[in-house]
C-alpha cells in the first residue's frame, strides 16, 4: 500500500509479520545455524546486508522490466541479482573479516537459497512499495530475521545445560521451540492497527 509510513513498514517486516516466525521464510538457516549467539548475529548481519542490496537492485530492476514490458523475466533477474549480491558480500567478508568468513563457512553461499531474501524482493514488488519503503522493508526483514536467529540461539545455548530426551534432540526440539516463539510473536498482531 502506498500510504504506509516508513516506521510502520519496518515494524511490520521485523515484528508484526516476522519473516521467520509468521511468514515461514528463512527456516533452513534458522534451524541450522542458530547454535551460538555469535554465529547467529554474524549470519543475521550478513543476510541483512544481502537483503538490502537485493531489495534496492530489485526495485531498480522492476522499474526497468515494467517499462520494457518483460515482467516474465522478473524471477530470473531477481535471483541473478541475489546470487551476485551474495558473491559480493562473500568476497568483501573474506577480505575484511576472514575470521568471520571462516566461522560462517558453508552458510554464507547458502544465503542465495534463503527464501527470506527472495521473499523480500518479491513481496516488496507485490506491495508496490516505493524506493524508501522498499529500503525500510528490507532492513526490517533483516532485523526480524536476526532477532529470530538470536532468540533461537539463546534458547539453544541455555538448553545445552539441561537434559533433553533423546528422541527430541536436534530438529524436533528446535521446531517445538520455534512453535512457541511463533505463538508468542502472534501477540504483536494488531500493533499497527
Amino acid at each position: 500500500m502506498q500510504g504506509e509510513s516508513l516506521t510502520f513498514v519496518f515494524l511490520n517486516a521485523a515484528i508484526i509479520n516476522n519473516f521467520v516466525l509468521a511468514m515461514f521464510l528463512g527456516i533452513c538457516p534458522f534451524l541450522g545455524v542458530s547454535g551460538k549467539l555469535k554465529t547467529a548475529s554474524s549470519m543475521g548481519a550478513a543476510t541483512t546486508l544481502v537483503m538490502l542490496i537485493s531489495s534496492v537492485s530489485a526495485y531498480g530492476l522492476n522499474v526497468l522490466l515494467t517499462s520494457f514490458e518483460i515482467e516474465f523475466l522478473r524471477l530470473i533477474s531477481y535471483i541473478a541479482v541475489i546470487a551476485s549480491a551474495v558473491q559480493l558480500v562473500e568476497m568483501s567478508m573474506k577480505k575484511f573479516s576472514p575470521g568471520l568468513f571462516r566461522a560462517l563457512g558453508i552458510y554464507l553461499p547458502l544465503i542465495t537459497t534463503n527464501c527470506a531474501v527472495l521473499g523480500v524482493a518479491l513481496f516488496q514488488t507485490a506491495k508496490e512499495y516505493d524506493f524508501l519503503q522498499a529500503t525500510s522493508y528490507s532492513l526490517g526483514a533483516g532485523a526480524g530475521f536476526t532477532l529470530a536467529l538470536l532468540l533461537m540461539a539463546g534458547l539453544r545455548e541455555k538448553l545445552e545445560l539441561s537434559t533433553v530426551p533423546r528422541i527430541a534432540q536436534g530438529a524436533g526440539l528446535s521446531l517445538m521451540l520455534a512453535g512457541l516463539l511463533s505463538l508468542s510473536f502472534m501477540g504483536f498482531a494488531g500493533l499497527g492497527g
Partner: protein
Amino acid sequence: MRPDLTQPITMDTFLRGIWRENPVFVALLGMCPVLAVTNTATNSLAMGVSTLFVLIGSNVLISMLRHFIPKQVRIATYIVIIATFVTMVDYILQAFSPAVYAALGAFIQLIVVNCIILGRAESYASKNAVLSTAVNAAGMGLGFTLALLMLGSVRELFGMGSLFGVPVFGESFQPWLVMILPPGGFFVLGSWLLLFAWWRERKARKALVEEAAHAR
C-alpha cells in the same frame, strides 16, 4: 569434466527419495514451503506437484547438459535453469488453475530457492545419466509431496475439521485454530519428527535385544 557415476536404475533409485532419504523428514530441506502452504491438504498437494514438475524438468535438463557446464559456473547455471522452470510453472498455474495460484501465492516463485532442487542437481543430476536422474528426481519429488500431505492433512483435519475441503467431523466440531496458524505448522512438523525419532529408537532397541538373544 565431472566424473560420470551413472548408477544402474533400480527400485531403490526411486524409492529412497520417498522414505529413507526423504528430503523433508530426513534431510530437513525445503522447509519454507513445508510450513507455509500446508494449512490445507489441497494446497499441500498442489505445492508438491508443482515442485515435482520443477524438480524433474530442471534436473533432466541439467543432466542433459552436464558434460557442457564447466565446474566454475555450475551453481549459476543450475539456478538459471531452475528459475526458468519455476517461471513456467507460475504461468501455467495462472492460466489453467487460478484457484491454486491464488492459494499458493508467492510460494510458487519461492520454489526456485527450495534447497531440495539445487541439492539434487549438485549431487545427482550433474553426475548421472538422464533416465536415472529423472527416476531419482521423481522419487524425491514424491517423497516431498508425501511429507507435505502428512503435514497438511493433520493441520486441516484438526484446524478446520475437513480433509481436501470435505468436512469430516460433524457440526459440533470446534476447530483447533492454532493448527492452521504459523505456530501450528512448527508444532505438527516437530511432532512428526519426534514420532519418527521414537520409532527409530524402538527399532534400534529391538535390534539390540535380538542381537543379545542370538549371542547367547
